[in-house]
Each structure stands twice: as C-alpha cells, then as structure tokens.
C-alpha cells in the first residue's frame, strides 16, 4: 500500500488556500501607500491615497501617460491608471464609464444625446484636454511629400481609387514618382473616436463623394483593420503601399510620412502642433465645452484636427477619488499644457483653457 499520506495533501491544500487568502487580504504595497511621507513637492496640499482609473481613446493615450508620470511627482499618493496599450478606443471608454467601471473615460468626441441615459452615474462633464492632428500616414517608398484632398482620400478609403498612380492622386502631386501599386487602406477594427473624427472630416470635405457616413464604427468595404492608433501605426509601418489615419504623436514616433491635406481655405497644410493650434483657435466652443475644429476655416489650420476629452460624472461618489480626479485635471490645465507640445499634442486655446478651468468648480465632491 502506498505511503503517501493524505495528510500531506490536505496540508499542501490548506497552505495554498491560506496563502491565497493572505495575499488577497494582504496589503497592496505599491498601489496605495498610506504612509504619510509629508514633505511632498509643490505648493498643492498632498492628497491622501487614491486610485483613479480611466480607459478609452488611444488617441490621447500617449499624452495621458506622459502626464500621469509627471503627475506622480506632484501627488505621490495618487495613482492614475490609463492603459498605455489596448485602452480600447473611445467606445470602450464610454461603455466602461456607463457601467461605472472606471472613474474617467478618454473620448475623442462627446457621447451622443440618445446615449446619455445609459450613464448610470448621472450627469456628465466634458473636459477637453489637448488637441492633435489626425495624420493621413502612408508607406510608399521614395515618396516623401504627398498632397491629398478630402475627395481623393474619400475615394481611396472607399476603394474607388485603387492604385497609387491613379490620375486623381497624380494630379495633386505633379512631379512625384508614384508607383503602380495597389493601395492598402488601413482603418480601425474597434469603435474609435479617431475614426469618427476622420470620417467627419470626409463628410465635410467631400460631401458628394463620401458615402459611408460618420461614426465611431464604419461599415468599411475593404482595406485592412488594426486595433488602436498603435495598431494602425504598426500596420502601415509594416505593409508596403499602405495608408492609414493615425494621431500625430504616434505617426511621428513611428517614423511615418504623412500627407499635407487641403483645408477649407484651399491650402495644403501639413500636420503639426502649430497647424492644429490654429484650427483649435478658430473653433466655436459650445456651452458643454465640446468644440469642433475639423475642417474649420483658417489659412494655417490643419484640416483634420481632432479634439479629445476626459469625461467624468459630475457627481462624484468618493471624496478621495473625486479630489484626486480634480487634482489630475488641474494638473493637465497647468503644467500639463506645456507637456503637450513635447510629445506632439497641441495645447488648448486660452479661451478654452479658462473655460475648462472654470468648469472644474462644477465637480460635486462629497
């Protein structure tokens, strides 16, 4: 008969279970340190430990994470979490906020009117944070400069223009050697605010050509899909003769070339933080602080400039989290605006900035 005693088995099992419970109920050493190591930097009072989580737009992810890192030295007890990859797209941010799984949603547009009842926590506040160009990036060897207008872009993404040396493209780019190659158009696989803003540009700039409408999800007829701005960057970078719409920061960091786009005034303007700022400055600001710089008039404006927002519930339920959220937003409207240009985002216009700061007082903290 075997010598393996069942006691040994129960002992191991017991230790496993105890170990699990010990870990589960144990201290979270890093996520919320409650030791008050006062002597914090800066003039603001040091907030108690709190953790606020966000999800959503990949368009603002690069900015958010830069700011989160910087914010940590100002408020060391506050942990802000925003997934650097797979944050999910504006749609995910909105649904997560609806279900109250996160404290804030990153979104490149404000929720639609009919979706507002879905938000279980009540009224929302929209805080624009930064703006940035949506580039039309491409990967065609030998082509460093490219000019495109809304009409041509619409036809490319609808599959009506299939080759790089199509007359429509060649006409805009006299003197550029375009290859006789198939265009691979890359779009977003998930619900994306970047898609919504890009297609909004197309409906404004090419109203008679673009038929697929504008929304976070589009019924694309062809091309390839990739997840997140990062995924599209990757796809364009690794697929010859491809073209895709990507936020400026990711396109630059990915070393991609992008086109100059014909703006409303008829000028071909290349994506940059300056041309984005020009577009933002010219946009009308709504009472809820949403604004629309897309295809706005202005000689130096970049035609596809996208706003992006942090959306939160007006009525915060937790004092510590509410204060943390407010402090984070304050930081964004302070040092955060300077950080923006260092990673290729455009800061808010002064008018927008002052209105946003004022809206901070509307947050109801228990």
């Amino acid at each position: 008969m075997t010598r393996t005693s069942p006691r040994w088995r129960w002992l191991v099992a017991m230790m496993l279970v105890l170990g699990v419970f010990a870990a589960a109920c144990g201290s979270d050493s890093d996520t919320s340190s409650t030791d008050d190591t006062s002597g914090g930097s800066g003039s603001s009072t040091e907030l108690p430990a709190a953790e606020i989580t966000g999800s959503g737009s990949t368009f603002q992810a690069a900015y958010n994470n830069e700011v989160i890192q910087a914010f940590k030295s100002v408020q060391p007890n506050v942990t802000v979490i925003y997934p650097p990859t797979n944050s999910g797209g504006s749609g995910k941010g909105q649904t997560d906020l609806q279900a109250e799984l996160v404290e804030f949603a990153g979104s490149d547009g404000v929720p639609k009117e009919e979706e507002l009842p879905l938000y279980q926590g009540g009224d929302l506040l929209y805080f624009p944070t930064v703006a940035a160009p949506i580039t039309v990036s491409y990967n065609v060897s030998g082509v460093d400069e490219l000019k495109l207008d809304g009409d041509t872009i619409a036809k490319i993404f609808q599959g009506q223009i299939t080759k790089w040396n199509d007359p429509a493209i060649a006409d805009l780019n006299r003197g550029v050697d375009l290859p006789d190659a198939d265009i691979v158009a890359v779009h977003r696989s998930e619900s994306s605010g970047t898609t919504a803003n890009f297609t909004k540009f197309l409906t404004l700039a090419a109203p008679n050509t673009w038929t697929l409408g504008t929304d976070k999800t589009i019924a694309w007829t062809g091309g390839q899909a990739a997840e997140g701005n990062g995924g599209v960057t990757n796809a364009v970078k690794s697929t010859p003769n491809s073209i895709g719409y990507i936020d400026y920061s990711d396109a630059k960091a990915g070393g991609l070339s992008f086109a100059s786009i014909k703006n409303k005034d008829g000028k071909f303007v290349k994506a940059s933080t300056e041309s984005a700022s020009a577009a933002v400055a010219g946009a009308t600001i709504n009472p809820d602080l949403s604004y629309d710089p897309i295809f706005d008039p202005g000689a130096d404006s970049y035609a596809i400039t996208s706003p992006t927002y942090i959306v939160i519930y007006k009525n915060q339920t937790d004092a510590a989290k509410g204060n943390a959220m407010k402090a984070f937003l304050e930081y964004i409207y302070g040092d955060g605006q300077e950080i923006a240009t260092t990673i290729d985002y455009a800061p808010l216009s002064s008018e927008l900035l002052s209105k946003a700061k004022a809206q901070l007082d509307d947050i109801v903290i228990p």
Partner: protein
Amino acid sequence: MALDLQPPPTRPSAPRLADERPPGIVVDTAFRWLAFAAGMLVLVILGLILYSTTEQAWPAFQAEGIDFLIKNDWNPAAGSYGALSFVFGTLLISVIALLIAVPISLGIALFVTEVAPSWLRRPVITVIDLLATIPSVVFGLWGAYVFAPWVLPRYEDLANAFSGVPVLGTLFNGTPVSARSFMTAGIILAIMVIPIVTSITREVFATTPAAQKEGAMALGATRWEMIRGAVFPHARSGITSAVLIGLGRAIGETIAVVLLIGSLPNKITAELFSPGDSMASVIVSQFGEASGTHRSALIGLGVLLFIITLIVGVIARGLIARSDRKLGLAR
C-alpha cells in the same frame, strides 16, 4: 476490624481498535454531501453560463431573428447584426487548419506507432506535447512578427503565378493580398491543432490489435500495406473523432486568430489571401466598446460558438464511445 473502604477494582477497558471514533457516520455523511455538492456545482455553473449568456444575447436574437445567422451585414452603427461572414470565417479557417493539420498529425502518429524505433517514441511524444503547451498569444505574436512578413511575398508570388487560372487563381488571391488573412490564420491554427489530433490518433493507432498487424506481415505485406490494411480500417472512427476534436479546438481559438486574420467583417470570399474575420475574433475586437444591442449580438456569437463546439464535441465523444464499445472497453 477496619471496614474495607477501598473501591472495588474496575474491569480493564476492552482493547480499542486504532483510530476508532464513535461519530464516524457524521464525517462519512458530511463528506458524501460535500462531494455531491461539488458535483452539482458543475451543473450549476454550466447552467448559469448557458442561462446568463443566452439572456444577455436575447435582445439581439429578437431584433434580427434568423437574419442573425444568414444575413451578411454586420453594421453596428446602423443597428444591423447579420453575422454570416463570421460563421463563414470561422469555418473557413478551421477547414484550412484541418486540411493542413490532419495529414501531418496522421503522419506523426504513424511515425510514433509504426515507424520509429522504440527509444525514439517517448522523446517524439514529448516534443509534440511541448507544442501543445505554447500559449495561444505566443502563437499570435510569432505569427504576426515572424510568419506574416515572411509569407506575404510568397502569397504575392502565388497570386501572380496563378492569376487567370480557373479555380486556383481565385483561391490564391486576395483583395488585397494580405499577410493578415484567412490563410495565415488557418496555417497558424493548423500548428496549434496538430498536437491534439496527433495525440488522439496515436492512441487509436496504438490499440490496433497486434494479431491483425502480425497477420498482415506474415502474409508478406509491406509496412505501408499493413498500415492501410490493418491500422486504418480499425482506426477510422477514432480518426474521425480526432478530427472533430481538432475542429472544436480550432473553432474556439481566439487570440491567435484575432492577431492574424485581419479583422475585416462582412467578407465572404473564396480568396484565401484576403483579410476577414471569425466569430471568436470579432468578439474580442469589438466587445470592449460595445453596448446595448451590439453587445447582445456579440454575446450571441459567443452562445453560437458554444453550441457549435458542443455539437462537434458530442459527435466526437459518441464516435469514441462507439469505437470503445467495439473494442470491448466498457465506460
């Protein structure tokens, strides 16, 4: 004379059986009920999964009806949830995977049972089982960064070579010809499915009655004839169930597929180098941000996946049970 006030000597107690504890029946009954509760827990969990997912999916089924399955129009923004292209995609990549994996698996199984010297058997089995332990996400990572860039020029060469040819020209083509496509997903799926199909077929081959094999050899059959004549006929239903189990695995595969199939809904085509989508893969790529009917529709796809896997598994298990009965192995 003093009274004898000593207490009377007591009888020594009867010798006790080691470990005898009077309330043994309590432990016994408690244990039995504990075991029963655990068994019922499986019932409860499975029932919960079925109920919860079906309930969540119901709004989509109601909105679309049978169109959910037969319409090829997935457009959440417009409220349309026809999932035909995903069912097609799942089946297409599974078929590609099985077409590649089954011959290879049969070959390996035959190698192990009939060809390899006995010292080589265990190492070979270990190596194939190692393939089975590689997580799906690693397959996806490797597929996306190593295989896909390597295979794209090969796809283009094939597309050029066969362009114009009647059937093959359509198959070996894509709009556009993409590294991330049905074919790539199918090939990587094949690699993932090989271990399980091999393992089952190997066991089936190993149970071929030695008498039949020896009889064939005694009659002068070559090894191949012996295999064809003695091993294959015996293993027919076993091979079928192995294929079905491989199919079940391929159908449910999610992460490797989503990284390699191209994520393009509404694509029903015979062009294998085109990007497309599958049921499991669209759930992962769209679920995060879906709400309302869109989410119901995705959960509905999950229910559909569940049911298909269930049917395939039941058939496979039925075949195994039948072949076991033939061998006299009561279960």
